[in-house]
C-alpha cells in the first residue's frame, strides 16, 4: 500500500475497530443529556415529570406550543362558549382549562441571540483579521507585549469583571441594549480571533502580497484580493469559535440584560408553567436554541477541524 508508506504508524484493523467503538460509546454517553432534552421537548407536561421516567411515550408538540405562547386559566363555561379551536395548540391548551393569550417572548429573545451572537462574531473576526495581519506582516513595536496584553484580557473569569461592567454600562446607558452586548462579546472574542488568525496569516507566504503589489495593487487591495481568499479557512474556524462563545454565553447576559436585549440563554430557564417548571417548553426552547449552532458547525466542519488541530500539524 503506497498510502501506508507515508504514515509513521499504520493502525491495524483491530486497533481501528477498538478506537471506533470507544469513540461511539463516548459519543453516546455525551449525547444522552441532549437526547433526553430532545425527547422531553416532545413529552406532555405530566409525562415529563412522571416517575419512573418514561422512555417510551406518545409524542406531543405541547412543549413547543407552550414555548411560543402565553396562556391564561379560564373557567370551563368561558372556554365552552368560545368558537371551535383553530389548531392543535389551541385545542391542547383548552383541554388544560386555559386559553392562548398571545405570543411568548421566546421568538424576540431568540432573535436577540441571533443578532448579538452573529453581530459580535462579525465584529470580532473583522477586527481580529486586521490586527492579526498587522502583527503578522509589519514590525510592530512591542509586538510580543501587545499580543500578550491582548491574550491577558481573557485570563480573568467573566464573573470577576461582571460587576464593574454592569456599573459602567449603567452609566453609559448600554445596559440591556443589543449594542452593549455586541461590544462586550466583541471585546472578549477579539483576543481569541487575533491569536488564531495570526497563526493562519503567518502561514500565507508574503510573496503573494508582494506579487500583487508589484502587479499594481495597493496593500489594502492585495490584502483583500489575495490574502483574504487564502485566509478563509482560518477566518471560518475563528468565526465558529467566536460564535459558539457568544451564542452560549450566560453570565454576562443574565446580569446585563433583562428586557428588550435579553438573549435566549437567560430567558429559557424562566419559562414557568402552571404549578412549576414547564419542562417540555424549556426542553423545546433548548432544542431550538441548539439548531443554529449545529447547522453552522456542520456547514463549516472542515474548517472547524482544522481550527481545533491548529498548531498540532505544522512544523
Amino acid at each position, binding site marked *: 500500500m503506497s498510502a501506508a508508506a507515508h504514515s509513521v504508524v499504520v493502525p491495524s484493523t483491530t486497533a481501528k475497530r477498538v478506537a471506533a467503538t470507544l469513540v461511539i460509546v463516548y459519543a453516546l454517553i455525551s449525547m444522552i443529556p441532549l437526547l433526553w432534552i430532545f425527547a422531553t421537548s416532545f413529552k406532555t407536561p405530566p409525562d415529563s415529570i412522571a416517575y419512573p421516567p418514561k422512555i417510551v411515550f406518545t409524542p406531543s408538540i405541547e412543549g413547543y406550543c407552550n414555548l411560543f405562547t402565553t396562556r391564561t386559566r379560564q373557567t370551563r363555561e368561558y372556554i365552552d362558549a368560545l368558537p371551535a379551536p383553530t389548531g392543535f395548540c389551541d385545542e391542547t391548551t383548552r383541554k388544560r382549562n386555559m386559553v392562548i393569550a398571545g405570543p411568548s417572548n421566546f421568538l424576540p429573545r431568540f432573535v436577540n441571540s441571533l443578532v448579538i451572537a452573529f453581530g459580535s462574531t462579525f465584529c470580532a473576526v473583522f477586527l481580529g483579521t486586521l490586527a492579526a495581519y498587522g502583527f503578522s506582516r509589519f514590525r510592530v513595536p512591542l509586538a510580543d507585549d501587545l499580543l500578550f496584553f491582548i491574550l491577558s484580557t481573557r485570563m480573568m473569569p467573566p464573573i470577576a469583571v461582571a460587576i464593574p461592567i454592569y456599573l459602567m454600562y449603567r452609566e453609559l446607558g448600554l445596559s440591556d441594549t443589543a449594542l452593549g452586548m455586541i461590544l462586550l462579546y466583541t471585546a472578549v472574542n477579539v483576543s481569541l480571533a487575533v491569536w488564531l488568525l495570526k497563526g493562519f496569516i503567518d502561514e500565507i507566504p508574503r*510573496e503573494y502580497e508582494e506579487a500583487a503589489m508589484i*502587479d*499594481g495593487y495597493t496593500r489594502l487591495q492585495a490584502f483583500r484580493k489575495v490574502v483574504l481568499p487564502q485566509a478563509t479557512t482560518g477566518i471560518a474556524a475563528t468565526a465558529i469559535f467566536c460564535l459558539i462563545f457568544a451564542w452560549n454565553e450566560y453570565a454576562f447576559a443574565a446580569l446585563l440584560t433583562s428586557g428588550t436585549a435579553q438573549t435566549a440563554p437567560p430567558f429559557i430557564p424562566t419559562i414557568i408553567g402552571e404549578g412549576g417548571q414547564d419542562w417540555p417548553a424549556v426542553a423545546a426552547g433548548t432544542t431550538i436554541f441548539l439548531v443554529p449552532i449545529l447547522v453552522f458547525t456542520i456547514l463549516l466542519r472542515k474548517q472547524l477541524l482544522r481550527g481545533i488541530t491548529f498548531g498540532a500539524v505544522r512544523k
Partner: protein
Amino acid sequence: MAEIRVQNLQKAFGAFVAVKNSNFVVEDGEFFVMLGPSGCGKTTTLRMIAGLELPTSGQILLGGEDVAFRRARERDIAFVFQLFALYPHMNVRKNMGFPLLAQGMPKAEIRARVEETARLLRIDHLLDRSVSGLAGGDRQRVALGRAIVRRPKCFLMDEPLGTLDAEFRDLMVNELRELHNRIHATTVYVTHDQHEAMAMADKIAVMNHGVIEQFGTPRDIYDHPATMFVADFIGSPPMNFLAFEGTLAPGDRSVTVQGAPVAVPELREGATGGHVLGARPEHVRFDDASRLRGAVYGTEYLGTQQIVTVETAGGMVKARIPADVRISTGETVGLAFDAARLSLFEAAGGRALATAAREIAAREAGHG
C-alpha cells in the same frame, strides 16, 4: 523596456549591512545576473529594485527616473518569485490577467493579451486549469507569463529555477534565454547557480558579503576574475591557487612558485609580499620537464575528460585533461600552465594584479 542604473545603493538592517555601496548599470534589453552565495545581498538588491525593500541610501534609476523610494506598484516592473507566488485561488487565466486588471484594462483586451502571452509561452492549453494542479515547469511558465503580459519596464527574477529538478532546470535555462532573445526585455536575474548565470547572462555581477566583487561578461568573469573569491566561486572545479612570495615588478613575465619558474602574462603593476597564482584546471598540463612537481592524489573520470588531483608542496592542484591519458595514483608528475590564461592575486585581500592579459580583455570588452 528601460535601462536600470544603480548608484551607491546601500541597505542596512540595524547594524548588519546587507548591501554596501552598490553601483552597476543594466543596459536596455540586457540579461543581467546577480550571482553569489546565500546571504551575499543579491536578493536584497533585487528587492530594492522591485520596491519591496527601501534602501538605506542610494539611487535606483529606472529609465532615467529615480524610483528608489517609490512604491512597488508605481515602478512598472515585473517580479518572478522563487516559489512563483501564483495565486492559488485563481486559475491560470486569472493569474495572468491579474496585473492587467489592476490597470483597469477592459475585459476583452485582457483576454486577448493573456491568450497572446500564453501562446508565446506555449501554455495556451492550460489557461483554464487551476494553478495548484500544474507541474513545476508549467508553474514557472505561468509565473513568467504573468510577468510578461504587462510589458513592464523590466523583469526581476529571484532564483526562479531554484525549486526545479536539475534536468528540468537545464530545459528552462534554454527556454528563458530563448524567450529573452525574442522579447529583449531588460532582466535582472538572481541566482547562486553559476551554470545558470553563465548560460543565460549578458552581464554578471558576482556578489559577496554585500559587495559586488566583479561586474562583467561571463567570459570576462571566468577568464579574468577580479578577486580570489570570484575565481573560487566560478568554475567547477574552481580555480587552483598556488601561493608564493616575492617582489614583482611591472614588465615581469615570470614568477617563481615552489622554486620553479612559471611564465605568466606580462605584469602591469608591481607588488611585494604574498601572492597567489591562479590557474583554471583546464589550463594545467602535465609536463615532465617542469620543475613544479607533485604526486597524483586521485582522478575523477568524466567521460570525455578527467579531473586529476595532484598534491604539490603548496597544496592540491586539479587538472582537467583528456580522458584517454593514463594516469595512476601516486605517480609523480610535472605541472605546466597555459601562461596566457593565468591570473595573479594579492594574497591579502585577494585582489587580482593587473596583467597584459587583463588589459587585452578589457580593450576587447570596450570595443564589443
